[in-house]
Each structure stands twice: as C-alpha cells, then as structure tokens.
C-alpha cells in the first residue's frame, strides 16, 4: 500500500534554549493512501500542533516529514504554501468558513487558488453541493447556515480539489451527535470516492471509532504507535 504520509522522529519545541517547552517528542508514524487515521488525546496533548505540522502550517523543530515520498520538512514558506494549495485539505474545528464568501465561493475558492478553469469549477462545485445536499444554499452566506450545514460546507471545501491528504481538527466539536455522525459518514463516503487519506485529531469516541486506526498522544508523546 502506498504511504501517503510519513513522520520520522518529529519534535516540536517553543521558546529559547534556556526556557524551552517541548510539546512533541520523537513522533514517528505513517499514514497510508486512503486510510482514516485518528489521533486522540486530551486537551493540551499536542494534537493540534501535530496536525499543523502534518498540514505544513507549522515547522517541526527536529525530525523528517515526507508527503507522498517527498521530504517536505525543509520546504520554505512559499513552497509549503504551494504544497498546501495543491495537496492538502483542511477541516477545521469551527468550520472557519470565510464570512464574506457565499457557500459557492467558499467551496470554489481552493479550485480558484489552483487556477482551475471557471467551467470546471462550476461543474465540480455543483456536483459536490448536490452530493452534500447544499445546492439550495449555494448563494447563502455562512451566517445564514445552521451548524451542520457549515460543517458540511467546510468538508466540501476541504475535498473539492480532491486532495491526497485531509487534515481534520476536531471535526465534530461544534456539532450535535446527529450532525457529527452525518459529517463523518460524509467524510467516509468522500474518502471512498476520492481516495483521500484522512488524519483526524479528536477526543470524540464517535469519531475515533469511525476511523481505521488510532494513535494516542499524551503530553507530547505517542503512546500507542501503530
């Protein structure tokens, strides 16, 4: 099976040498193509930091990181930005939709960033809106949507460009049980349709049980590596 993501002895520390706080210690794991991997752990265990490193939002202090076999830990900020734009989709804890953009624009935005032709964007967004049952909401602004609808838009935005890796941080945190389950179901369907690998940080048992595999983080240490 193809390895989508591979972390080798990743550490992350904040602050100067004499006052350093290490939040991740020697983290090593791999994520296969199409795999659904949960990272669980209590608040403050380093889940979000690890996700930020995996999503190329943050740097590791030490260690190597490979995405699709390519070393990405040493990329400069411009290259990291390009890599995020092309290959990584994000699902945020609180949806993080752009308030001034309509549902359509929010979903279409990643495609626009990748210079996809307008016709193709229109087609892809329409298809995904239908798949998510949001076609009647396409011209609405985020504040006009319910929590569940916002989360679905957030998922659609992460998947529209068919990324190879989707990084999701507490995707069920702002949802009730019914909407959380529906959201997970949707991610799983899209995972099967598009073959994206999912890396999901959560301490929600519903989410963790939904995943193929789980890793546990405790005080910055990987407790149960696969």
């Amino acid at each position, binding site marked *: 099976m193809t390895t989508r993501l591979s972390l080798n002895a990743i550490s992350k520390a904040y602050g100067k040498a004499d006052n350093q706080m290490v939040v991740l210690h020697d983290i090593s794991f791999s994520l296969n193509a199409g795999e659904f991997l949960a990272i669980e752990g209590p608040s403050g265990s380093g889940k979000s930091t690890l996700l930020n490193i995996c*999503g190329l*939002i943050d740097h590791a202090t030490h260690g190597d990181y490979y995405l699709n076999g390519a070393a990405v830990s040493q990329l400069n900020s*411009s290259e990291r*930005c*390009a890599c*995020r*734009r*092309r290959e*990584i989709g*994000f699902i*945020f804890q609180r949806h*993080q939709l*752009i*308030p*001034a*953009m309509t549902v359509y*624009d929010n979903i*279409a*935005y*990643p495609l*626009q*960033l*990748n210079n996809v032709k307008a016709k193709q964007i229109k087609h892809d967004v329409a298809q995904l809106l239908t798949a998510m049952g949001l076609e009647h909401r396409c011209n609405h*602004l985020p504040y006009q949507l319910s929590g569940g609808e916002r989360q679905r838009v957030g998922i659609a*935005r992460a998947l529209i460009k068919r990324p190879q890796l989707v990084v999701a941080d507490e995707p069920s945190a702002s949802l009730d049980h019914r909407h959380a389950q529906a959201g997970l179901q949707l991610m799983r369907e899209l995972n099967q349709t598009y073959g994206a690998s999912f890396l999901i940080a959560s301490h929600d048992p519903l989410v963790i049980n939904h995943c193929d595999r789980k890793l546990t983080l405790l005080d910055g240490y990987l407790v149960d590596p696969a």
Partner: protein
Amino acid sequence: MNWPLIALRNILRDGTRVISTLLIIATGLTALLVGSGFMLSTYDSLQEITMRTEGHLIVIDDTPEPLLGGSHQQLSLSNWQTIRESLWDDDRVLRVLPRARFEGVVSKGNRSAVFFGSGVDPKEEFRVHGPFLRTTGVLDPWLTSSQRAEVMLGAQLARTLDATSGDLLTLRTVRSNGESAEAVVRLAGLYQNGTPAIDNHTLMVALSTSSALMGSDNVSQLSIYLDKKEESAALQRSLQETIDGVIVQSWQQRATLYHKVKSLYDRIFGVMAIIILTVVFLAITNIISLAIYQRRSEIATLSALGTRPPQIYANFILEALIISIAAAMLGMLLAYAISHAINLAEIMMPAPRVRPRDTPFLSTSHGLTIW
C-alpha cells in the same frame, strides 16, 4: 470570485467603525477641497487684479537706469504711438493703453502730500480695471474736460487733502531736465483700488495733462490687454523680436504681490494638506489594522488553504481602496455642497488690503479643481 463584492461585504461587517473612518476621511477631504478652492479663488483674483492693473503685456523702454528720480518718474518710451498703431490690426489685442508715471507734490490750500501720478487714457483706463477700481463722486465728464485739466485722486489722498469733487488742486513736479513745473487741476472724482497705502499716494490725470506738466509726449509704458491671457507668451515673444529698443514684459513679471501671496498660501496650504493627508492615512491604516487584527483567524484559514501572502494583502488593500473611494466621493459631494452653500448665502471674504471690496469666499468650480 467577485473580490470587490467580497471586500464590500467585509467592510459592511464593521459598519460603525467604517462609517466613522469614512466621515474622518470625507471631512479631511472636504477641508482640503474647500481650502484649495479658497486658495485658487484668491490666486485668480490676484491674477485678475495684476492683469487689469498692468495689462497682459507691458512694453517699456530698454533704458537701463531711470533718468531722474525713481523708475516711477521715467518717461522714456517715445515711439509708443507707432507701437500702438502696429498692434491695432492684431486680433489677439483688445486694448493698448499708454501710461505716463510721474511724481511730485499735490496741494490744496495749506495741505500738501507727496503723490505718485499716472497719465492715462481716461476713456479706457477705468474700463479695464473693472470692479477692481471703484470710483466715487465722479463729475461728468471727468478727466476729459477741455475747459480745465482734471485729476482723479485716491480716496485716502483726497481725505489727507480734505478735498472733494470740484475742488482745485495744484500739482507740482520736477521735469527730467530739472525744471520745476506745476498745473492747477480740478478734482473730478475719487477712486479706491482696495489698498489704502496706494490710495493714499496715487492720482490719475489724462495723458494730455501729464504731457503738458512733464513737458514730454513720452510715456513710461504701454499696457497691452489681450482677448485671451493664454496668448500672452506667444505675443510677448513676437513683439520682443519685432520691436527694437523695448522690453516686453508679461503680467507675471510685474505680479510681485501675486507671487508673494501665492508663495505664502502654497506653504500654508501645503502644510495643511500634509496634516490632513496624514490624518486620512492614519484613519485608513487604523481601520485596516483593526480589520487585520479582528480577522486573524480568517487570515490563518486563507493561508492554510494555500493563499499566497500578497493575495491576502491585496484583499485588505482592496477594502482600503473601496473605503477611500467612497470617502473621496462623499468628501467631494460635501465640498461641492459647502461651496454652493457659501456662494448661495453670499458669504464674502473680508476685503484684504489688495482688494477694493469684499469678494466671494470661493467659487464652486474651484472646490473641485484639484480633481
């Protein structure tokens, strides 16, 4: 993606702060426009005064130094009638007026005062000054009476002499050859040019009177009035090339007061403009900085999605641009309304020393000139 619409939505999210910023910028711009309108209106008035007083072009003899006394006394332009006739056929020229400058002492009874006099063409002289030279107590006909030589006095000079229309005055002067000369003239009326210091020392007589008094048919200068002031540079060049022994000056070369006032106002309004523009800049910077601060998580999201930093900045710049354009339009509208209101209410600028009477505070069109 309709970025202007998205920028507009972002602006409207922060309505109250945007409105206050908009008002700050619009007020600053209004102040700048109304101030500029006043400044340009003042420049226009001073230009007009200079052009009406001196003419668009001035022909003087090229003798380097005055013959006697100050330059005021110089009567060295001898061929002025030939020059005048040669200009009559030029369509660009409206009027050519000779002026003979002389000086001396004017007396009425036991009261005397030093004067600076001008021998003029009475029919045309007061016409070209228009509203910038106000006459009072004028006898009819004046300066052109064949019975007796007449004089028009500056209002302040008449007050000094306690003279009123119809009084007889004595003009005493020294001719260029050193002889003293005098003439008894009847006071035909008074004039005010708005500068008491000038009104206190000047008088005007008909050219024939000054010629008889000074014993010379020469004049000090020929003032040329044009149909369009824009043609003065071209005509100045051509006259300078075709007429020998003269210097042709433009009104700008004689406009000492205009240049001084312009220089002063330019500096004052320049400083004002810098202050206002700084306030405007700070207001825009402030609202954009706050927007950036308030939308940190949105910026982080855009960045996570792979938006390049310049694209993120561009969104905020677009918002600043929209606010600026809206404020500019509001400011222009306010300036236009205020200048119209000032003109409709007939609010007048108090007459400064250079003006004969109160003049409009500004003209509406000048309020928008810089745009």
